[in-house]
């Protein structure tokens, strides 16, 4: 399986010199240079946080997991395979963190209870004509709806959907990260979308006609 060697999690100050800079930094970091780790942290943290925010749907959780990802990378640096890109390695650790997070919150009945409560409290969220003047609040509610529906999806479908549709990772990178083929990724994303639509209808967020017209 091809690894995601072209991920750009840790941008260098001079992009032209990025590979050399990063490999030197990583070599120093793995040799125990705390300054190199500090620089990698400074470079990589924002992108890592962004990735985890998309994967988890919650900023506080993402901040916690981003720290944990770095801490784990530092602590397990001797297990880092130099043949693999550092960014891909970090991505992989972050993805595992996100998986643990999803497993810990796997209680779809609770998620659906929240969905029901939101639906009652915010019925306009399911309509196209937005009556709620607080658009940002509505967006946040919709975001919660999506993540709650995602909680009920199988891991494989949810991950494919998150990295492609929310994180907007290019197909090749996303497929490499999940260690599947691009074709398989496309199928999973498509199935995830279908399942989300079904779930929205089942929970009453969409009318049967809205689903049937597709």
């Amino acid at each position, binding site marked *: 399986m091809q690894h995601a060697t072209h991920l750009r999690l840790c941008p260098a100050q001079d992009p032209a010199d990025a590979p050399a800079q990063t490999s030197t930094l990583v070599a120093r970091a793995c040799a125990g240079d705390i300054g190199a780790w500090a620089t990698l942290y400074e470079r990589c943290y924002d992108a890592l*946080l962004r990735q985890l925010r998309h994967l988890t749907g919650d900023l506080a959780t993402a901040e916690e997991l981003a720290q944990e990802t770095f801490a784990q990378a530092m602590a397990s640096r001797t297990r880092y395979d130099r043949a693999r890109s550092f960014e891909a390695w970090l991505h992989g650790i972050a993805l595992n963190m996100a998986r643990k997070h999803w497993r810990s919150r796997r209680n779809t009945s609770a998620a659906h209870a929240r969905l029901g409560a939101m639906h009652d409290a915010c019925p306009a969220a399911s309509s196209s004509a937005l009556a709620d003047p607080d658009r940002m609040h509505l967006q946040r509610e919709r975001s919660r709806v999506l993540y709650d529906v995602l909680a009920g999806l199988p891991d494989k479908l949810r991950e494919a959907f998150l990295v492609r549709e929310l994180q907007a990772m290019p197909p090749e990178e996303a497929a490499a990260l999940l260690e599947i083929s691009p074709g398989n990724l496309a199928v999973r994303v498509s199935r995830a979308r279908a399942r989300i639509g079904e779930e929205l209808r089942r929970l009453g967020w969409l009318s049967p006609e809205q*689903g049937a017209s597709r």
Partner: protein
Amino acid sequence: MTADHVDRLISAATATADRDLAHAVRPAFTDVVARAARLDPAAVPTRWLAAADDPRPAWPAEPAVAPRRRWLVPLLAAAAVLLAFGVQRGLARRDPASERAFQAGAQPDPAAPQSSRNTRPSARTTTDSAVHDSTTQHSVTRDGAALDSAARNSPAHDSAAHDSARNAAADDSAARNAAARDAAVPDTTRTADTSAADARAPHESLDDLLARLDDEAEACMQAGDLACADARYREIVQRGGRRVQVELAFADRFHLARQRGDDDALRKLWTAYLTRFPRGQFADDARGGSCRHAAQPAACWRSYLADFPTGSFAAEAAEAAR
């Protein structure tokens, strides 16, 4: 229709994530080192814990740009004070329209110097440059370490006063410039287009106007009146400067132009979009689409590859640029 609703949820989720990330704070590096030590005490030397408080001097390979630019900090701080003074004086003279723009916090015109605090990359952008931008956005950390980083990464280390002053003037000029640029885009709906802006309520903020236009556009779409929808999206593009709603409106206009099969309009929309959002969330698509229709495709694809080495069209670009 289900797909539209799922897309709506995705759009809301990405917009919410962007807002969250704009307020994120980078934890102190020392906290991470301490956490690593808790995870595996044997793997973290005790000297790390002491060194983590000030790890930067241990890293000599960092470009020498940082020390050279440190003189900028006091200079820019002084400039910020002057600007703040200027803003205070200017506020007293600002006309009501400018005041609304100031309160709406519109983004500056692309022609204006960029503010690192305002240039938030989109969640849906994966270019090098966008990711690079993202490293400068969290300019405040719990240990203050990234303040140095922000000064180093941002030639124009800006202050809140600086941002405010620029935003105050930027909105109207952005709208004017946008209108001039977008004039080149064919508009089959100009008649329908004028009503929304003219109907702007006296005290309606720009945010409210854009939200209302978006709602109207959606209602038009639901009714199957695509020309009406396009007119509303066009209005958002003209009015909204560089706000995220404008990017989405552009995307809807791309979609509508594709539906009409109007390649000429699509090309002009791509150009208008890239002028305003050269690193926007749809820049990869717009650049790729433009290159497919370019008069000199090889040169266009080479340029694309330089900017989007891992972009969606990278393979096609590499093939065409040979």
